[in-house]
């Protein structure tokens, strides 16, 4: 394996790119905190999760170099993500069954 070929696979990311990503992450964090101040009702958490996903994508693509890794890594991450999605969907399909969790258990004796 020669040198030139290798550098094509892994282009150097400039220091400036990393610093821009870091600034974007800090701004998005500030945004998350600011949004939490408003009452968006049931969308508050949804918006926070969307921002967190954007932040994760930035960290993954640039800090973790995923943008420059072979496609197979992207598929592996997609599979892991899909496993989580399936687990969550199947749990919440059964959602009305765990509504009993919200009832206080009176058997616990308190003063």
């Amino acid at each position: 394996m020669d040198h030139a070929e290798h550098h094509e696979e892994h282009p150097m990311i400039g220091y400036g790119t990393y610093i821009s990503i870091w600034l974007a992450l800090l701004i998005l964090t500030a945004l998350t905190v600011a949004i939490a101040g408003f009452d968006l009702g049931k969308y508050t958490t949804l918006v926070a999760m969307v921002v967190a996903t954007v932040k994760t994508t930035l960290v993954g693509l640039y800090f973790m170099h995923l943008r420059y890794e072979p496609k197979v890594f992207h598929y592996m991450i997609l599979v892991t993500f899909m496993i989580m999605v399936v687990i969550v969907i199947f749990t919440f399909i059964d959602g009305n069954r765990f509504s009993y969790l919200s009832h206080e258990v009176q058997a616990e004796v308190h003063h």
Partner: protein
Amino acid sequence: MSHTANIAAPAHIHKDYNGAKTGMWLFLFTEVLLFGGLFLIYAVYRTAHPHDFAEAAKELNVVLGALNTAVLLTSSLTMALAIACIHRGKKSLSLTFLGITILCAFAFMVIKYIEWESKISHGLYPGSEYLMLHYSKGQRMFFGLYYCMTGLHAAHVIIGATVLIVMFYVTYQRPNEKHRWDVFGKDELNGCRVAILDKDGNEKWGSEIDESVKQVHLKMKYYSMPKRIKHEDYVSLENSGLYWHIVDVIWIFLFPLMYLIG
């Protein structure tokens, strides 16, 4: 009869870069699913007790939580910069950034300690008498999850910092590469000669390999030139970086779900 043996220089030793990276990512997926399970429990109990969770979350210190987010994001930046520097052959700059990353990990743990300490001194910890008497079931659930999830995350920060300290030492040592060839018990090497020749072909130093020789060592200063540095030479540093970033990613989700739902 003389033989010239070709000794493979370290730059040509095949290291399975993609294999090492794939292995690290598979491990990271198990980490994601480990925390995924806890996030699932969080989702279920929060669905069951939305108001209790919102009430209990107000007890957390948003300023300290946001500060810790900034500390972790900054440490992620310095980690990425440390790897970028080593690829350019700037070792001391790389070690500086690695050092800052480790300091950020300590700063995170100090802030975490302050947070936990103030909660625990107020009697807010799982199973405490105060919590059981004054808080509803859902609020107690929230604090249980808060301690479990931030605790497990803090454990990952400590492990990550330990790995980074080891990598600091490894990177610091790096130019002094030692290569060893075991010759003991290899009869065909008996009577061979190891020698160093100058440009005129004169032997500067040489020694016979007889039965008393166990190993041949070659100590090199190899990676000081940027052109010689390849990614596979620093795959362990890159993989430690990946671990550190996944710790950061988990916190990116923990922070809004714990601190900002009030």
